[in-house]
């Protein structure tokens, strides 16, 4: 499954606060593991969604195999889990979303509907 361009940016405990929490742009953090088959199925769809969203919404990847403190902090019980953040606050969570374009698009955009970027 070669990925020509990675639209999902890896994030670690070191830069999580800066990239995910301290931004005014809607953010999705995907908690995943490379050994997880469900994450593997979701990956190409997530890439398409991230590409389509562009700078409107940022999608980050948190590998729980290496970022155990982040997995513990957000009480991740399985992968993939998508956590939606708005101005540093968790506003939604999708646990094991269907790996289809429409389902994933809805999962990562609906929590931000009605939120003003100036609000």
């Amino acid at each position: 499954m070669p990925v020509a361009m990675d639209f999902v940016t890896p994030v670690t405990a070191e830069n999580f606060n800066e990239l995910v929490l301290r931004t005014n742009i809607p953010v999705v953090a995907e908690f995943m593991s490379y050994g997880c088959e469900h994450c593997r199925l979701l990956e190409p769809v997530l890439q398409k969604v991230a590409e389509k969203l562009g700078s409107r919404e940022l999608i980050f990847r948190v590998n729980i195999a290496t970022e155990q403190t982040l997995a513990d902090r957000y009480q991740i019980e399985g992968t993939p889990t998508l956590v939606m953040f708005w101005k540093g606050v968790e506003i939604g969570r999708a646990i094991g979303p269907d790996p289809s374009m429409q389902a994933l698009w809805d999962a990562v955009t609906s929590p931000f509907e009605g939120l003003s970027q100036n609000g």
Partner: protein
Amino acid sequence: MGEPRHLPILLFNDECAVCRLIAGWVCRSLQSQGDAATLIVQPIGNDPAALRALNPSLDIWDAYANIHLIMPDGSMKVNGEAVAETLRRTPATRWLAPCFNWQFFGRRPLQAILNVAYSALSDIRPLLGCESCGIPSLWLRPFHWMALTLRGKTATRNHSAVSSQTIRR
């Protein structure tokens, strides 16, 4: 590409108990014979770039899904072919290796059997307690459900349950 290598690298999924067991057996077999090294056994890890340095077409997701053997010339053997090459380079099973090259009407029937055996083992890994091996094949799902029920875990859909043990390795 880094410095030149002279040995193949066998990549294994260290999140999978079955894979760890097999990799451990290969390591012990290599060490017990006191032979010069014939193989490097290495966990896949979590760095996609490090894998691409071994072979530009090696994708980390694929590496976790199927066994890969990276040859010194950069080429890759996968699945049953990787198993055959590993057996060929492991002292305890070296004698078995020529069987897989035996041809019958241009086909390699024993290699084909090994390919099927690898696929079957790969399929049943989730039943053997591998938390990271994901989705069992359709025919295995009733058995997988029973195994989960016996272990007191609920079946998950589109979601791999992460035990605290898996997170805190």
